[in-house]
């Protein structure tokens, strides 16, 4: 979506990323750390893990999330620093305050990473790379931190460009050159392509984004479903996700729970009870976030991997299990028509909105039920989900997962 007058063609998006941010901040505090292999993280005695590693430490093969003990084995001279997240927060705010002078449209995605939309600031900086260069200089001179910037026509390519330019770099992908830039890169460099997808792509001899971009889209659709063609568009460097400043609320996501059964089943009683349980868990998360749901979808996967899903929209948004359960059961009822064992059941709540629930004066039953739900949530917070169960779900606790035989 283009913002204001800037059409998709002349958007100018920056992805900025602070290099080895935690380590860099520690080095500002203690310059003696400069040039040495440094990690931030807890001590090995307390089973600490690496939260951040300097480029010198990375040269030893040390990576984030690695156990500290292992990191110290890899590099005996390693300097370990306890993290100070308050300090990192302050440093991060100082950086983004500087960047905010270039454009109000800044979407901070983490403490050390953000997207900036510079579209329409052409009078200040005719070329976005010049603005990016000045940002890097300012951050370096004023805060002594290094910034890597990727410049492109959209978010996706700017992110890949900054990863490409790291560390201490600046890389611009000129408009129209997106596909050419991405083509030689391995598929896993594209955000959204994880290890599982990568493996499948490699199975099909698709190692590079250029190959993915050129593959027949019907084939991708066959293999990856609706994600296939979308993935291909991204591999061609097409993306129109807007940069969302903090005052624009994020589009509502969905909240879902699903479960693959230890043993495939065709017991409808079991499925109904499972649905009840999954829905209760999803609704509880919904309530904890102060959201209301308007849509429910129920998904089944059969033993032969055929999947089926149905959804429905409620007349009014709610966060109450009782009001979600009946339509969910109805969906399940309409769906489970094949005489095949079921291996997975899932429920998903969508159409989420932040909101309050308007009770009715004329239907006090609903208000009473809500007070009950609130009380149940309280009990479950203290004693766990299974502390209180709906009658229907009780026999789910039996190890066989089968309905007890009548005596």
């Amino acid at each position, binding site marked *: 979506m283009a913002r204001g007058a800037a059409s998709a063609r002349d958007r100018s998006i920056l992805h900025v990323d602070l290099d080895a941010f935690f380590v860099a901040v520690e080095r500002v505090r203690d310059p003696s750390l400069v040039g040495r292999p440094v990690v931030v993280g807890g001590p090995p005695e307390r089973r600490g893990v690496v939260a951040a590693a300097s480029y010198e430490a990375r040269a030893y093969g040390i990576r984030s999330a690695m156990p500290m003990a292992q990191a110290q084995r890899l590099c005996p001279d390693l300097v370990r620093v306890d993290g100070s997240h308050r300090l990192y927060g302050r440093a991060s705010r100082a950086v983004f305050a500087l960047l905010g002078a270039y454009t109000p449209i800044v979407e901070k995605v983490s403490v050390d990473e953000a997207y900036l939309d510079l579209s329409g600031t052409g009078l200040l900086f005719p070329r976005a790379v010049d603005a990016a260069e000045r940002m890097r200089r300012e951050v370096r001179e004023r805060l002594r931190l290094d910034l890597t910037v990727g410049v492109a026509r959209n978010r996706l390519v700017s992110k890949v460009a900054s990863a490409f330019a790291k560390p201490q770099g600046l890389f611009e992908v000129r408009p129209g050159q997106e596909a050419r830039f991405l083509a030689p890169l391995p598929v896993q460099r594209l955000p959204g392509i994880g290890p599982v997808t990568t493996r499948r792509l490699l199975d099909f001899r698709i190692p590079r984004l250029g190959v993915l971009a050129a593959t027949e889209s019907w084939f991708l659709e066959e293999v990856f479903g609706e994600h296939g063609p979308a993935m291909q568009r991204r591999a061609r460097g097409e993306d129109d996700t807007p940069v969302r400043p*903090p005052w624009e609320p994020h589009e509502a996501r969905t909240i879902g729970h699903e479960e693959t059964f230890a043993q495939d089943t065709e017991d409808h009683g079991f499925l109904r009870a499972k649905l009840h349980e999954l829905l209760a868990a999803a609704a509880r998360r919904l309530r*904890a976030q*102060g959201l209301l749901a308007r849509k429910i979808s129920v998904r089944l996967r059969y033993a032969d991997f055929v999947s089926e899903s149905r959804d429905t929209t409620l007349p009014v948004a709610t966060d109450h299990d009782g009001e979600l359960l009946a339509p969910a059961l109805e969906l399940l009822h309409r769906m489970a028509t094949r005489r095949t064992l079921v291996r997975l059941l899932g429920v998903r709540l969508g159409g989420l909105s*932040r909101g309050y*629930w308007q009770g*009715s*004066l*004329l239907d006090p039953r609903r208000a009473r039920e*809500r*007070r009950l739900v609130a009380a149940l949530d309280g009990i479950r917070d203290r004693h766990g989900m299974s502390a209180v169960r709906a009658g229907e779900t009780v026999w789910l606790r039996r190890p066989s997962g089968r309905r007890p035989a009548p005596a």
Partner: protein
Amino acid sequence: MKFLIDRTAFRDALQRVEMAIDRKPSRPELGGVLVEAVNDHLIVVASDLDIAVRYRLDQVQIEEPGWALVPGRELVDVFRDIEADAVSLALTDKGQFEIHGGEDHCFLVSMENSSQGALEPERFPEVPALAGEADVTLEKDVFMQMVNSTRFATSRVHETRFATEGVLFEVQDGEATMVGTDGRRLAVIRRSAVRGEGRRRAVLLPKMLDQIVRFGQDEPADLIEVFFLNNRVGFRIGNLESFGRVLEGEFPNYGNVIPQGGKHVVRAHREAMSRKLKLASHLTQDAAAVVRIAVSPDAMEISAEHEGRGRAASKIEVDYTGSGLTAAFNPVYLLDGLRAAHAEQVELQMEEPTRPAKMVLGEDYEYVVMPLSTFA
């Protein structure tokens, strides 16, 4: 039929019946206005099956009695623009309704007519005569106040379970009650009737009440007479008679809804509370407006937050000595109540944040609002 009449007087009469002219008539007659010239007065009637209005004009010079049913919209429009002070209206030999004033000359087709004088339209809906003594009589101003105090709370959409699109009108042994509710708020007002024995009850169409409030005020009469007919209710104020279909369906048992006072009783200045509510409601989510009311001794804080736009909070001084309590409301509901309040000082009674709150907006005038709740 032939008569001479003052243009403004006839135009005003048409305005009074205008709301009852069917805009999309299922039968052409329902879009018509019945004009009847009796010996010394003129009667104008319109009816769209939901409501009907009959208006009597005494300042008229009848030359020949008779009646005609003419296209309503066109008649109203023509009279809005005709320029002469006095207008003569007549049924021609060809059965046309002739309007002649100064240089203006219009002919409307007559859908049904009689030059003989006897009123016997065939297809126009029958509008009952309000004869004999009324079932209930109220002071006109009292009736208007009752409507204005309850009508706003009615449901705007058709509810399947209850007939809450209408206003409940109940009379029992001289005491009249009106109730309006949409299920989320409820307004109830009680007043004494001038006359009215026994028990009468009907759910009234808001459209009819609107017509009465709008035009009944101008009638030089102090009383309103109410006639409970079969499936209709008729009202008479001076020369104006309004009829409305009685809404079928059950009306909620409002007595159960009204809380019997609350632990927390806050007295606030109506105008001050309104102003702060308006301020806070500028920062509420468009679709689901929420304001939070927090009371503490001598203070009420009204705050709102729009995710991504900002927040607002402001305080007013109130008369309150209880413990702290916070509840969330739809600001529109609170503002509606305050706007309708009769007194400068209103009372807000709350039990707990999830239970209905009651506002006392005047003498024998209560307003119950269901708060908004969240689990987070």
